């Protein structure tokens, strides 16, 4: 029998609000242990939670970026469980009345179709403390770091609309892009600011039934999510084919061994409305106020880039994949560089410069103006593309303008015909065999000769003109 996978996701995203969710402590979980704490987030007796407005704003921004409907009233519940990372015995979460519902995102499937995937709800909840397991005097000890306790999270619950690991990964990429655009989260699976749990079940192809699902956790990259889903689909298929029954449980993904294995069942407590935290009432006016703060979102931007700058759909979508990249692109174009040249350089050399230095588009050390000037020199044939790469690399590490660097490194391209002709004369007289070969029509020799000329001129010669001169002389 052929099976179809049915996949739904539960995604936890850490909001980048300045404060924690129910107190004024800084929301910086990575600081030295227990630095950002107060009676409220230490959950000491007598302390009360006061919901932070700045957290609500970030959460609403995030929901709007995922096309969700903000609910007029939402409220917090106490989700009961006992564990040392949660010393008050309950987590504040929105179980009965979530902040928003009915969102969606479009993805392009593996079959190149656009498909709309639904988001059931997004609710807010507080993070718990972090446990650190160490050894002291040959004894195992567990330490608790409260920096993360009370940090703001949202949980995104999708409908089970996905049927392949490819679509899940595309969905996660789209989700991450939207949320990053909204400015509400860093959304890094690698750094744990986005955590994805996948619920997977199988059903006979073309049926509409929903079968017992298995939850898979502990993936630390989008790639991992895809691998874990593929593994789990294969495992369940195998089990079904052998006549086994799928039981509801949770499995942990092991990224090294690339397998999932069952984890101990977690106690699922009840949820009761919190009597202390007030109901959140959100007016339409307030939602609109926040909506106005969203930047131009990727879909609109891609369309505009195609129309306004003549980019291909692929280029436009690549350049819109990150907000800062798209802004930098437009800034550079406004400073006079031609759009497609900018796209080419941003997506190739610039991207590797950033990666090599562990930077991101938000902390680019090269101003759009300098970058535009550099590309201008290239377009005017004042420097070669090889020289452009070199100058760009220096620009990343110094404050110098491209003009200064070109001058200092003597990289100005030689386009002067007389100078180049002399160079070619010298070259041809020293390479009789090559010249003969070229005359017989061996085109590869042309590349060799141009390369020699470039080496001779230390990369400054204009290769196009060199080739023209050689061709002229050979005739």
């Amino acid at each position, binding site marked *: 029998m052929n099976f179809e996978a049915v996949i739904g996701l539960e995604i936890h995203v850490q909001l980048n609000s300045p404060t924690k969710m129910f107190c004024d402590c800084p929301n910086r979980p990575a600081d030295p242990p227990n630095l950002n704490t107060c*009676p409220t987030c230490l959950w000491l*007796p*007598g302390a*009360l939670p006061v919901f932070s407005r700045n957290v609500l704003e970030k959460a609403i921004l995030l929901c709007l970026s995922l096309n969700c409907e903000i609910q007029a009233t939402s409220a917090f519940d106490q989700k009961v469980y*006992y564990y040392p990372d949660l*010393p*008050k015995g309950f987590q504040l979460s929105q179980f009965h009345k979530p902040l928003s519902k009915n969102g969606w995102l479009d993805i392009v499937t593996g079959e190149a179709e656009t498909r709309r995937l639904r988001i059931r709800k997004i609710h807010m909840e507080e993070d718990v403390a972090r446990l650190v397991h160490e050894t002291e005097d040959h004894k195992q000890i567990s330490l608790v770091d409260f920096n993360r306790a009370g940090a703001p999270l949202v949980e995104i619950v999708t409908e089970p609309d996905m049927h392949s690991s490819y679509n899940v990964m595309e969905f996660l990429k789209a989700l991450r892009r939207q949320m990053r655009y909204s400015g509400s989260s860093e959304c890094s699976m690698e750094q744990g600011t986005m955590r994805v749990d996948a619920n997977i079940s199988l059903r006979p192809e073309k049926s509409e039934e929903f079968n017992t699902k298995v939850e898979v956790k502990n993936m630390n990259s989008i790639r991992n999510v895809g691998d874990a889903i593929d593994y789990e689909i294969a495992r369940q298929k195998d089990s079904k084919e052998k006549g086994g029954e799928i039981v509801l449980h949770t499995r942990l993904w092991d990224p090294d061994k690339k397998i999932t294995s069952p984890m101990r069942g977690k106690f699922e407590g009840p949820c009761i409305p919190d*009597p202390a935290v007030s109901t959140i009432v959100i007016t339409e006016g307030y939602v609109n106020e926040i909506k106005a703060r969203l930047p131009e979102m990727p879909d609109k931007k891609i369309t505009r880039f195609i129309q306004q700058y003549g980019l291909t759909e692929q280029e436009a979508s690549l350049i819109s994949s990150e907000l800062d990249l798209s802004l930098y692109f437009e800034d550079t174009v406004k400073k006079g560089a031609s759009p497609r040249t900018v796209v080419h350089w941003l997506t190739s050399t610039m991207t590797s410069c950033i990666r090599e230095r562990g930077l991101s588009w938000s902390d680019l050390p090269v101003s759009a103006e300098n970058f535009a000037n550099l590309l201008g020199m290239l377009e005017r044939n004042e420097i070669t593309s090889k020289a452009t790469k070199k100058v760009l690399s220096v620009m990343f590490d110094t404050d110098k303008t491209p003009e200064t660097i070109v001058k200092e490194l003597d990289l100005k391209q030689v386009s002067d015909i007389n100078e180049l002709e002399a160079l070619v004369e010298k070259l041809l007289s020293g390479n009789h065999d090559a010249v003969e070969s070229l005359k017989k029509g061996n085109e590869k020799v042309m590349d060799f000769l141009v390369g020699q000329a470039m080496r001779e001129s230390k990369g400054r010669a204009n290769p196009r003109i060199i080739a023209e001169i050689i061709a002229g002389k050979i005739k």
Partner: protein
Amino acid sequence: MEKDFVYMNPDIRDGEEDGLFSKPVASLQPNMSVKGWLCDAGSAALENYVALEDATVTERLKEEGFFIKGFTRMSELGFGLRGDTAAGAACGGKAEIAFMTDTLGESRVSASLKGLFGYKPSYGVVSRYGLIGLVPSMECYGMVSSSIENISKAVRTTSGFDSRDPSMPDETPPDFNITMDMRNPTVGFLSQCMALLDEEETEAFTAALDTAREAGIGVVELGFDDFSLMANVHNVIGSVEASSSGGKYDSVRYGHRAKSDNNWNDMYIKSRSESFGSIVKAYMLQGGYFQYKAYSDFESACRIRARIIQKTNRLFEKADIIVMPSRGRNPSIDLQDSISDIYETFTFSLYANLTGGPAVSVPGLAIAEDTDIGFQILGPIREDGRVLSLASVLTATINRKGRR
């Protein structure tokens, strides 16, 4: 140490007491945080817990020059009246004002037992920040004193917006001032409530109504069908909140920790089993039952509570004040061995905790044979000045009567 106190302010040195008491004296309970004091809330679950900071009420009392004499003995986490001594501290001038947790009506019932005034302010007018409690939506700082003026002064001192308590509306605080000129108010009594009184209690309560009439106050009879549901609603919601909110008393950072070599879960279960007294434990278990096995009953209780509040608002369109006894004649104060015993004791007082309205128990007005059952005055939420004023007017009337 004075017998009503479990902890005395260390500033009091032998023989130096008098000098300190030029200030107004207040007593607190050990669940009302005072920085550096042992705040165990009368429970082994908070053993060794020393408060890191003052509760808002503590802070405001200190700022206004009150002297906090110490902690009185309290029932575990402020639930019920087992061994409470706050009212004792308010007797005979030992403390001008005794603060006591009011979850079911503890302040009003214990005040009536000692012939004192007991007051529960409107929910959300006195900050609960720093109050170590059990039932967040019902409990508040109650106040007991021999004088209604002291109570008015204490609530004026401690009330007012506090950004640290999310249940406080960011509004102008209500008027807590006492006025003797009440402009012909009407009080209403509930027939369903009268039906619960025995002959002596009825007589005593009727006498109190007569005093009100003498003071020029109109008296009307009102009906409230849901009266008999109140205790059950309070019981279900209260126990669910206790079960969930009480989760923070887990013996990890403070409180009694049981010896356990196994694992975390085992440690939690043993510690909590050994820490809590039988009443609180039973209450939490009951709450757990509603959370896990009968959640829809909890939801029904919440709906009925909302309806009770609505109907109460309608009652206040017919009368300015609702009156009833504070307690029955024979409450089993010292024999509170079960949750139903406790709820029976607070039959009349828990109404205000359920609705959040202000209530005062006035002594000397309703005496059943030799027992003062307390004359309870309930007002609409945030109309604290109205109940305090009526208490004052009635007290003046009865005093005049006494002199005649």
